[in-house]
């Protein structure tokens, strides 16, 4: 017969019971205090639960100041949209001598932005003169499907990059649209129809 291990002491006490010692009130006081201070600190540091505030930045105002300004965003957007124009007008806005007019220092771009907006919306053909040089080409209505904001952005980009001018707003583009509608003109512009519709073209 195998020897049983008698070293195991399997005697046991009954199931344990829980005593009734009171938790001191001071602990609850400390917890409340710490909880309050913690809430206060978290409130100070949590940036109002903003989704876009990441360490090491600390507040929505800070991140808003760091973020690109409205003007920079419009410029950037315009630059993106200009990719549709650079095929003809070149990435540097220089155009092709004799064929495609430049956008740099162009009297057609400076001044009232509604002229440029109208051209983007409906296209332009026929003989025109830009900075004294004659051109006789055709531009498609690239912006026919673009929104006011998009046209405003690309015009802002062109004007700010090469013409030293300020922002073009979506409202100005909308005004141009209204003028086009009022004039009743359909299809591509030429110099004469532009003048007739109220968009003063430069000589």
């Amino acid at each position, binding site marked *: 017969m195998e020897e049983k291990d008698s070293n195991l002491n399997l005697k046991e006490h009954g199931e344990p019971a829980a005593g009734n010692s009171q938790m001191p009130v001071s602990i609850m006081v400390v917890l409340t205090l710490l909880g309050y201070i913690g809430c206060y600190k978290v409130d100070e540091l949590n940036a109002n639960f903003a989704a876009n505030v*990441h360490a090491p930045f600390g507040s929505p*105002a800070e991140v808003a100041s760091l973020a690109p300004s409205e003007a920079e965003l419009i410029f*950037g957007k315009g*630059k993106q949209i200009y990719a549709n124009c650079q095929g003809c007008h070149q990435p540097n806005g220089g155009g092709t001598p004799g064929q495609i007019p430049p956008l740099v220092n162009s009297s057609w771009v400076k001044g009232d932005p509604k002229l440029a907006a109208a051209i983007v919306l409906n296209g332009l053909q026929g003989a025109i003169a830009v900075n004294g040089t004659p051109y006789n080409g055709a531009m498609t209505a690239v912006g026919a499907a673009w929104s006011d904001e998009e046209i405003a952005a690309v015009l802002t980009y062109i004007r700010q990059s090469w013409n030293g001018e300020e922002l073009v707003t979506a409202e100005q583009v909308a005004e141009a649209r209204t003028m086009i509608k009022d004039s009743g003109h359909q299809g591509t512009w030429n110099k004469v129809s532009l003048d007739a519709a109220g968009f003063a073209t430069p000589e």
Partner: protein
Amino acid sequence: MNKSPWIFLGVLFAMSLSWWGMVFGPASQVNAAKADLGDGTSLHPRSGLAQQGEQIYRENGCYYCHTRTATGGTFGYEIQITQFGADEDLTREIIGEKFAANKIFEKAFAFKAVAGANDAKKAASEAVKAEGADVEAAEAGLEQAAEALTEAKTAANAIKTEETLIALGVSGVTIEGDLAGELGLPIEMSEADKSEVANATFAVSNGIEQWDEIKDTVRALKDRAGAQFKLLPVADEWPDVVNGVARRQSVSRDFLFDSHAMPGVMRVGPCLSNVGARQTDLNALYAKIYNSQAGGQSSHMPPYKYLFNVRAAEEDETLPADAVTISTGDGVTSVESGFVVTPTTKARALAAYLQSLRNDKGLPEAPLPAVREISNPEEGE
């Protein structure tokens, strides 16, 4: 505490607090995040090989030794004014005498004064030519305007500084032609000049101030002085940026389109948050994945030879174009001497994924901080 149903409900309630705060809250907030960055570009998911590479990265448990999270650190702010507002005294009051004493500041406002006087003179000469105008009064006005312009030009020329183009840039006015010549500016601006004017900035803080110290200045500049400016964080003790690991901290939008986030737990190997910008040499990447100790480099990354096709090299065989090579003392040789090693699709996918890991583009919520010495503008020119 004696009724099990109460304990059960209590447990559910207690755990739901952390569930709400750590699962539901953040997840729903991130799910609402937009990919659009506001300037016509947006974040986009990986596609093609890079997307497949994410799976290879996960399959091999790379996230046990590598992180994809660059962290923040301490930094200071530099306020860089790109264009002053109209009011010189107000701006001087806001930025403080220390910076306003700089010659560039004075020159910029002098240029503004000249441009203003020039416009006034033009307007006056228009008034003279206008129909039905009081010619005498208009000519008197024109004379006054001409005098004012001369004064402004003299005042501008009295301020001596080398940085005339920067002063012109931050003034926000355009001065061309003969007037430019009279003021010491180039009459015909070269591309470089134009660029310098367009990108001109004027720093009005020391690059060590914290947000709390500059926030009032920032608000005043924007709302009261109407100035245009950029805030540039300048890394102070920011290990990941200063050590070149990454260009900025990782934020949640960096993981927006990942199907598996895998931010990593430990940096036994380097952080991969910007590895796509740091390691552009595809061959070097393959060599590292194949055998990180090739060429005598010290590394404890296990070799991943099974991601490659390895065959014995023929005698005098020239290595194919896609063979993985290393540069040793004997020139460019195969990473495994005597063998031709070419990457399989899995290796290509992994490399494509790694090259897609970049954080060198600033986001609106995480611009790229600068790491440089700040020149002290209070000394002026």
